[in-house]
């Protein structure tokens, strides 16, 4: 069943594991060099699929299929399309930067740290390229262990609590996912866990409704959507810088990717039915996240809450179910990965000097750290969505899509952009131009070349995507159109036969919405 051609994706996914083997063999001092080399090589290799990618087709490319288990038929099947390819590149780009930023920040158990980071990379890449649902789940869950260790061993003072909270939250979320996968298998009756096969099957509406919420539990926790976001600030604040970057830039994308890969194509009826609920939660997340970000005195917490807000844009874009929204959402996923990742790197760099993440301790950096200040301004403005920078394009598309769905939703979401400008600029004003904290000035010295090397690639992408997003958008077009067409078909069918939604299907949604509304008030 194997398809010919060079096994690009297998190489990309498992190269980090080879790095792990190499790290085990070399002495501790060389561990970071090996990790840097392997992860950089991984990025170079992942450029292969990017260059060779055929943009004209929504079909999966670079597909490799090998039988893993014969009964029930589970395959090692990988492939990428326009939705997953950008995320694969995002992951391979950020991992070497995570290694770089940990160069001096991680002093204890460097070997284990690099191993965790690389295992993490393999698991997340595996999630993005899996074409078999069980394989997907295996990677999805595997990722929890290295992340748990990253937060718990190398994190801040409250790390143990944050690590276990992260672990249990996400594990509990994915409990129903596994059952849903098995149920899908039996209902589709195709004797296959293949994601595309399962997407082509038709499921009764009541089943779709149940499965939708089962998927939702898993993916919404990962995104995280309001009100499932409470693990995020803890995990972000306590994690070491590299952990925060991996968490924000890669892990959060997995949930959104899950919606795109599974909820939309497999459960089109339920998606249509519940889209308003999800949109409502997204708008709440956008505004609530921004509102919470205002109140934070801790830089990492501020960025964590801004993540909640920005990921709200992503889910908003996905669930307006039109091409603009979804393309905007994918773009926004990449943008958020770059921008928020960079902001966490910035916080990590200053934390190494002052050992404080409090805004009050890190004020007035422009005087003593001019280069740093310039980078921070770039990424902060990118986070705000300044035209010419990456987030502007993504948010613009999402808002455009939202506007087509409902003017009210778009208006509410646009409020989030304004709030973002407010809390980010206020943060900038204090950190860059504030009065320097006297007890810290002696510790402040500007960035060295390694740190500049960590941030410069991301700054490059901020402007590239901001000014010329076409290459990235071109990659997505075919796949997104395919996705939207499937939704459109369902919409036509639904409009043609005005059947009221079944009673069972309406039930699971009502407690969800009820709770959220109560909490919002």
């Amino acid at each position: 069943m194997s398809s010919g051609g060079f096994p690009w994706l297998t190489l990309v996914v498992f190269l980090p594991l080879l790095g792990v083997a190499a790290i085990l063999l070399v002495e501790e001092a060389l561990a970071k060099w090996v990790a840097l080399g392997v992860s950089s090589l991984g990025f170079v290799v992942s450029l292969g699929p990017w260059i060779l990618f055929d943009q004209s087709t929504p079909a999966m490319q670079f597909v490799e299929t090998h039988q893993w288990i014969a009964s029930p038929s589970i395959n090692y099947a990988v492939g990428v399309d326009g939705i997953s390819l950008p995320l694969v590149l995002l992951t391979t780009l950020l991992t070497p930067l995570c290694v770089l930023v940990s160069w001096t920040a991680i002093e204890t158990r460097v070997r284990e740290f690099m191993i965790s980071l690389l295992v993490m990379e393999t698991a997340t890449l595996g999630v993005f390229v899996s074409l078999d649902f069980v394989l997907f789940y295996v990677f999805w869950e595997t990722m929890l262990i290295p992340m748990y260790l990253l937060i718990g061993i190398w994190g801040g003072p409250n790390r143990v609590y944050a690590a276990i909270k992260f672990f249990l939250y996400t594990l509990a979320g994915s409990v129903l996912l596994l059952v849903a996968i098995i149920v899908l298998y039996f209902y589709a009756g195709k004797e296959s866990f293949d994601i595309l096969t399962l997407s082509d099957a038709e499921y009764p509406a009541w089943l779709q409704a149940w499965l939708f919420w089962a998927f939702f539990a898993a993916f919404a926790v990962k995104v995280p959507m309001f009100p499932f976001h409470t693990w995020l600030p803890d995990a972000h604040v306590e994690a070491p810088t590299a952990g925060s970057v991996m968490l924000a830039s890669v892990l959060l994308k997995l949930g959104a990717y899950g919606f795109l890969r599974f909820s939309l194509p497999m459960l089109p009826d339920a998606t249509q039915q519940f889209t308003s609920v999800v949109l409502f939660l997204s708008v709440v997340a956008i505004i609530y996240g921004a509102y919470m970000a205002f109140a934070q005195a801790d830089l990492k917490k501020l960025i964590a809450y801004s993540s909640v807000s920005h990921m709200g844009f992503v889910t908003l874009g996905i669930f307006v179910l039109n091409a603009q929204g979804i393309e905007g959402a994918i773009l926004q996923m990449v943008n958020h990965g770059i921008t928020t990742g960079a902001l966490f790197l910035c916080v990590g760099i200053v934390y190494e000097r002052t050992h404080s993440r409090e805004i009050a301790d890190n004020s007035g950096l422009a005087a003593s750290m001019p280069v740093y200040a310039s980078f921070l301004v770039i990424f902060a403005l990118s986070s705000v969505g300044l035209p010419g920078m990456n987030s502007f394009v993504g948010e613009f598309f999402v808002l455009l899509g939202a506007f087509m769905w409902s003017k009210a939703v778009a208006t509410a979401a646009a409020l989030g952009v304004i709030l973002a400008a407010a809390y980010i600029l206020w943060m900038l004003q204090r950190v860059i131009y504030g009065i320097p904290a006297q007890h810290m000035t002696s510790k402040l010295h500007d960035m060295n070349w390694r740190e500049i090397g960590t941030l410069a690639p991301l700054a490059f992408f901020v402007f590239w995507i901001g000014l010329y997003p076409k290459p990235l958008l071109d990659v997505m077009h075919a796949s997104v159109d395919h996705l939207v067409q499937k939704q459109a078909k369902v919409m036509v069918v639904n409009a043609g036969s005005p059947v009221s939604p079944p009673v069972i299907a309406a039930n699971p949604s009502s407690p969800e919405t009820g709770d959220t509304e109560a909490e919002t008030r």
Partner: protein
Amino acid sequence: MTIPLADLVTILPELIVVGVACLLLVLDPITPSNKKDLLAWMSVATLAVCFIVTAGSMGDRVFAFSDLVVVDGYASFWKLLLYVVSGMTILLSIGYLKEERIDLAEFYGFVLLSLTGMMIMVSGADLLVIYLGIELMSISLYIMAGFKRFEARSIESSAKYFILGAFSSGLLLYGISLIFGAAGSTRLMEIAAAVDARGLDDSMILIALMLVIVGFGFKVAAVPFHMWTPDVYQGAPTSVTAFMAVASKAASFGAFLRVMLEGFGGMKPNWSGLILGVCILTLILGNLVAIVQTNVKRMLAYSSIAHAGYALIGLVVAGWVGTEAGVSAKGVSSMMLYLAVYSFMTLGAFSIVAILRRGGEEGEDLDDFTGLAKRHRGAAFLMLLFMVSLAGIPPTAGFIGKFYLFMAAVNAGLTWLAVVGLIFAAVSAFYYLRVVMVMYMREPSPDQEDETRLALSPTATVVLALAAAGVVLFGLYPWPLVSLTATAALP
């Protein structure tokens, strides 16, 4: 009356094991004390021979001794698993018994005698034969549990195990006598015929059925018959605890399943609901009580109760009314798979407890694991692996085991049971990960660094390697084991 040779050939592995067990007891007094290890190696070699014999004759369904004993793929599967587990127990014990200063070679004799009992249990086609197997297994285990004879806890463990075990055996025997009254025989086939003839409402058979379930419930440590487990597991020498938690549980499940399906298969409507209740109670209690344990051995005892709950899902599926034969067999095979996987990860976890020493004693307290990752990287990583597997997180074998169980449950229309099982799997992650947390995220105090050490004998290393290999290989490439259980399952 002569015994036909063919019958003896059928039970050749049993004969070999029991023969060597007796030989060991004879050789023990005349072996110089510095050569006692040879006796352990002799038992391991015996198991290897038996493994080859059983594996070679696997497949056909052969009855012997006027249908008292059956050797089929199902029995052979359990026997193969029991050889591996017993072999690992012996290898672990070689170093461990010396460390505990209880290195008497009788120990290996008792392991083999107990194994004989287990083999008879899984091969018995007659309730009395199964009962004899249970007794042989249990009596050997009572002695082994009290092997640290100068330590009150071990003796308490032995006495408790003996009293409650004898009690449960009594209940089982009482059930068997009622069956004999109703069916006129204790053979499983004839019990099945009597069930068919007398219908579902026959009160005598119903009472007997209840007593049999209670009896086996004790042996597999299912709630509410689990009370003996924590104390016995905690007090017994750790290699014995591992043997009890793994081998005796596997053999009891093997016999339990055969009795329920081949003897009482006609009464599925009567017992499937009951087993379902026991299964859910076991999942709830095992997992919830494990959370509050601070002693790793005791935590693993509750964890073994919880895992009995998972394994029971397989029996529930096999007995669920309205499922087709194919689905029912999937319940059986998924349970066999689960117990096989469970054996490796549990043995591995107990092995770590056994080699971790604090002063002259076992480091079985959660505190003794503090900062283990700093002091003994390898041991800590293996414990991490076993804990992750016990929690059922991929890519370990524990996930594969749970996956097949839940597949079977959903296939039988018991989706909600799969949900319950998974919720408690998430709960269990909390207490398994606490061990990881203590090992990796806490700093050891200076006196801990002085006091705790690893007593890692070469044979214990082999056991750990085997257990880890089982957990990893069956996690990454489970197909050989899956296909073996699928072909060996009872229909």
